[in-house]
């Protein structure tokens, strides 16, 4: 039997079905599009958040790794120095720049970026921080200043003539603008000089009955300096020297006897200037080099082959002994102050040389980099 074709039959089921499918398809597509848009919007917000967090992390990183001497080496108003880019993982990185706005205020500018697999930035955010360098304020009156009696014996040398430490004049020379010479010794008690000892300066000896604990350091006091300490000594020290840790090596500032490196400019500790503090009597022996500011709340005794670059301040008596072939050298100066001061005595091959350069480097280098106390964080666009 032959099936008959219904050529002339009419109907609309197919058209209705197709129409319904199109409408449903459009609605589904619209929903999908809306969902996709929302997902992308959320992702963009997430990326922007990552970039903003990276920018803020960059500020903390820059502050934490900034070195006071590097900051002081920047020129006021010069273009910003690029501090490099740090990858924070997960395609997030931050670039950092540092500029010196005034003699004491600096700006860190960071740009955090969230990138895609091809390295294209999907979101960037900027932030900034105003920084300042808080430096200890200290006036050295000469090579050796004391409230009390001073005894200089043996081959000891005290000089108030401004001295640049040897090696610092070698090119590229450390920036050491010369300053006026100062008294070799300034004191308000009695001075005893015996043996082959030498005292030089302008004048070599200055008896000053007006010296007292409040004017000895030029407007600052021991407590103010103590508040800035960065290295608390827990006992006597036998030998000092720079030490590094890690690869690439960084200065190991956790060690009690690492007091920086004042001679080798390639050392990671060349710019490390601790403010060293010890409560009670302190004895330093052995050999080695150090720099910074040494604060002793008690008597200080030094013997051996030790050289220290920077000011030394003790509230009690200072006893420096260079015995035999051992030399004890201080580039910067010594202040022994306080009403409990006993006396100060130099003997053997002990040398105390006033050095404005060593003092300046120590004071600047031991400064603390900090955000401005108020309005230091800034949103950059």
């Amino acid at each position, binding site marked *: 039997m032959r099936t*008959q074709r219904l050529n002339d039959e009419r109907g609309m*089921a197919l058209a*209705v*079905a197709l129409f*319904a499918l199109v*409408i*449903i398809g459009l*609605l*589904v597509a*619209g*929903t999908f599009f*809306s*969902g996709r*848009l*929302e997902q992308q*919007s*959320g992702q963009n*917000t997430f990326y922007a958040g990552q970039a903003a967090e990276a920018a803020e992390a960059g500020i903390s990183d820059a502050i934490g790794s900034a070195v006071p001497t590097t900051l002081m080496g920047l020129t*006021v*108003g010069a273009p910003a120095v690029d501090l490099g880019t740090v990858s924070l993982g997960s395609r997030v990185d931050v670039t950092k720049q540092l500029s*010196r*706005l*005034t*003699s*004491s*205020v600096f*700006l860190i500018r960071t740009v955090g970026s969230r990138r895609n697999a091809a390295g294209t930035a999907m979101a960037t955010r*900027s932030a*900034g921080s*105003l920084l*300042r360098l*808080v*430096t*200890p*304020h200290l006036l050295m009156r000469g090579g050796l200043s004391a409230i009390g009696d001073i005894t200089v014996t043996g081959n000891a040398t005290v000089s108030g003539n401004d001295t640049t430490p040897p090696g610092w004049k070698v090119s590229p020379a450390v920036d050491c603008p010369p300053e006026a010479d100062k008294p070799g010794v300034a004191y308000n008690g009695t001075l005893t000089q015996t043996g082959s000892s030498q005292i030089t300066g302008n004048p070599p000896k200055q008896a000053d009955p007006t010296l007292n604990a409040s004017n000895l350091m030029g407007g600052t006091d021991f407590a103010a300096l103590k508040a800035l300490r960065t290295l608390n000594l827990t006992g006597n020290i036998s030998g000092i020297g720079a030490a590094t840790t890690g690869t690439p090596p960084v200065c190991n500032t956790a060690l009690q006897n690492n007091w920086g490196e004042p001679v080798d400019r390639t050392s990671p500790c060349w710019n490390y200037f601790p403010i060293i503090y010890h409560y009670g009597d302190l004895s330093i022996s052995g050999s080695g080099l150090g720099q910074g500011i040494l604060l002793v709340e008690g008597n200080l005794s030094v013997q051996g082959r030790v050289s220290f670059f920077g000011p030394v301040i003790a509230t009690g008596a200072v006893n420096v002994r260079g015995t035999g072939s051992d030399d004890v050298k201080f580039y910067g100066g010594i202040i022994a102050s306080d009403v409990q001061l006993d006396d100060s005595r130099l003997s053997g091959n002990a040398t105390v040389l006033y050095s404005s350069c060593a003092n300046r480097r120590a004071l600047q280098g031991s400064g603390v980099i*900090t*955000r*401005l*106390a*108020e*309005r*230091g*964080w*800034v*949103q*950059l*666009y």
Partner: protein
Amino acid sequence: MANRRGFTLAEIMIAMTLMLIVGGAAFKLLVTTQRLSRSQAEQASLQSNVRMGSLVVLNDLRELNTVVGGSADRNDILTIAANDITYRAMRGIGFICQAPTATQIRIARGSFSGFRDPQVGGRDSLYVFVDGDQDTEADDTWLPVAITGVSTATACPGALGAGITLTTPNTAGLVGIPVGTPIHIYEVMELKLHVADGKSWLGARSISAGEAIQPVLGPLVDGNGFQLEYLNAAGAITADRTAIKSIRITIRGISDGAVNPGVEGSPTYVQDSLVTQVALRNSFRP
């Protein structure tokens, strides 16, 4: 026509019944899909609103400066309430490019980074950093100065390029401020839960410019759609605006109209909320 046959009544009835079942199912599917689509669009819009609100508020508040027990000029939060805050909103930072006079500050255009350029009419004021003894931060202050005029048709000395000159009332403290000193531009703003046209919105206005409050985002839930909690250093709620270290922001949004949530149920208003907490970046000291 002899060979053409019609449908029987039974055939037609069966066909119509089938058509009704299939058509009904298709219609139901269509309506459900349409409801879901609308519901999802509304939800997406709502979430976007809430998220945007949190970002706007967070960005405006995080640069605020507070100092416990400090003077008025050191505290950027001026008044606080559960759903209302007035504050100094930072609008940009620039750096002085020429020694200022008692009535004029010039900043380098290239160094200015801001939300917008400084404006007059009382809207913007500025803070100038005053560094007393350069060795210590103990005497650092920010000097508040009004802006009475802005000119961009000026140049900084040397190679610093274009400048922005800000005219100020006679302020002796400006003389002697060194080149390079940073300045902040700010305006006094208010954010609050604002009711307009029978709905609640996040409202904002520039108080220093004398503006009326305007809805900027919403609609929000009536009563608590915009809620602020002020936290001190210990994380406890405080009423002392100088002790605020962070602010917890709650945005509760509501859909613009009633939507059907799905296949079943009657149309209703949907809500969503987002809680964020912003640490005030310039309130980090105890």
